[in-house]
């Protein structure tokens, strides 16, 4: 270790790996991963979020986690986005591609992708 810069470099590199344990991220992406969700294809959706969050280095802001059956099995895979001080957003019939769009527009951009939400699915 010859410089503080080297130390800082290791710290930045490692931060994402331990940040999971600090909790308290203000955004939570929850993927329904019960039997129904998995059968409907929730695994690739979860993977897409996990990879996307990592790629965009959002690890210290966004937590990706999974949950059990929400009770709307016909709409699976279901993804919910929780954010402090805002209403919960529920996305339904998700795919890995849709996940990417949610990641870019909602999670990064702050704009809800209305067309995938449960409100729109019910109308349709």
């Amino acid at each position, binding site marked *: 270790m010859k410089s503080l810069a080297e130390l800082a470099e290791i710290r930045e590199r490692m931060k994402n790996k331990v940040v*999971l344990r600090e909790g308290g991220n203000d955004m939570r992406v929850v993927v329904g991963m019960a039997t129904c969700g998995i059968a409907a294809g929730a695994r690739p959706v979860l993977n897409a979020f*996990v990879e996307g969050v990592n790629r965009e280095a959002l690890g210290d802001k966004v937590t990706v986690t999974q949950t*059990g059956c929400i*009770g709307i099995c016909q709409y699976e895979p279901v993804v919910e986005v929780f954010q402090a001080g805002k209403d919960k957003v529920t996305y339904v019939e998700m795919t890995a591609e849709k996940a990417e769009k949610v990641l870019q527009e909602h999670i990064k951009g702050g704009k809800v992708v209305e067309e995938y939400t449960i409100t729109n699915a019910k109308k349709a």
Partner: protein
Amino acid sequence: MIRAQVLCCGGTGCTSSGSPKIQAAFQSEIEKQGLADEIKVVQTGCFGLCALGPVVIIYPDGTFYSKIKVEDVAEIVSEHLLKGRPVERLIYKEGAEIKTDENGEVHASLNDTTFYKSQHRLALRNCGVINPENIDEYIAMDGYRALGKALTEMTPDQVIETVLASGLRGRGGAGFPTGMKWKFASGNRGNVQKYVCCNADEGDPGAFMDRSVLEGDPHAVIEAMAIAGYAIGADQGYVYVRAEYPIAVKRLQIAIDQAKEYGLLGKNIFGTDFNFDLSIRLGAGAFVCGEETALMTSIEGKRGEPRPRPPFPAVKGLFEKPTILNNVETYANIPQIILNGAEWFSSIGTEKSKGTKVFALGGKIKNTGLVEVPMGTTLRHIIEEIGGGIPNGKKFKAAQTGGPSGGCIPASLIDTPIDYDNLLAIGSMMGSGGLIVMDEDNCMVDIARFFLDFTVDESCGKCTPCRVGTKRLLEILDKIISGNGEMEDLDRLEELSTYIKSASLCGLGQTAPNPVLSTLRYFRDEYIAHIVDKKCPAGVCKKLIRYEIDPEKCIGCGMCAKNCPASTIVRTDYVAAGHKLASMKIEQANCVKCGACMSSCKFKAISKG
């Protein structure tokens, strides 16, 4: 990409309750279920709730599982890690509300439990959070930044000023201001050989916070010792740790090797002209080697015996060179103080005791383990809230702090805010932070005898007051608990204690009578009961208790006789009214007072008095 982590406690407590097997089971089950790319198993240091081991925490949600068995692992992996449904029956939920949200999702985070909620973890901040065998994880938690800051932005005097201003006092026992120690040793930098030592010879029965720091966050100690080396102008450090701590020794060695590899120990650290090296010295587990002069004598390779002070170690210490010696927990606070500043640290705690203190909770308490609270927290809060209270609905009687050097705090003083000076004022001491809780079933004379028995064993024998004096104290106590005491013995105990305290060479002898004096001060009536009434009110001292069978209640079933290991229960001729068989009787002469008869009697015919 790792989306979840399984943290398995690898502290000594959980290791002995089987955590290595649990960790291996998680590893293989995760691979079996094809989750190896997204879930990582990490071995960490102690979480503090040792009574509930093996413990596992799953992040990011922070779910805390306790008393895990190998059979439970597959269920946790498939239910929680794959499907996201925490296995509720295994979650530790004392005090934490299990929240079920509108979706039926279960939340129970470790941080919500009463055990953790009011803790303030500074010295233990990384224990149970990082993998202690991976220096990168320590660096990610701001590790070695304090060393970098000290070396590149601060002069050695500024470092000492900061430690001084923080108000940090030694966590190993006496509570001497750490910054003062450093200042005394700081003269003549660069011209004389100096040493930095770490006292990890944790000897108080029941205290294990130093072990936990070394096992869970060894780099914090290494970083702090390097900072201390810079402050006083030393280039060599020694950690004196007892050989009974194999996991701590192993992890510390791994940590030292990694720090050397990264150049955080060695020559020209951070490109400056500061050099610092560190080695481990193993102790053989003699209690006296926790005393500073005995410890340094032992590092020198000689028999661990204390020597008179002055000269103090800051003037003539290890190998007769200026030396500073601090305890593990003290060091664990240093990097935080350098990083966050003296003001931040001194804002925590009480006027004269700053920061936090780790206590090892033991005895009659629900949550046995390690807790870290701000100085000034009341004993009541630690015992009733964090510790979960006394099991089996028993009444709190006293708490023993400071181990064999400390004293008892009676129930009437349970609201005392705990800090160095308050404890001294009520006849106890902080010591290293052992906190043994006692209920109505503990005999205070017996407790005093227990600690004295320990010091008699551990006295090194160099000075007479300690070697002979403690032995005489023990003999008087033995006389009292066997029913042969006289009231004059109480005066003898007090007189002899005073002599031992004032005439002993080192801290061991100077504090050895404390358990006797403090129990005499608060529980004199129990001593009197032993002497005058020949009774042990708590029913502990065997020579003073008697088991009796009530012939009117005894139906003569003979269960007691069957269970008596001394075969000293016989049948009488007496048949009580309404009973068919003759009653039983204990022949007192051969009774070993084990109580097996009483617990085997279904008719409550046997009493203890």
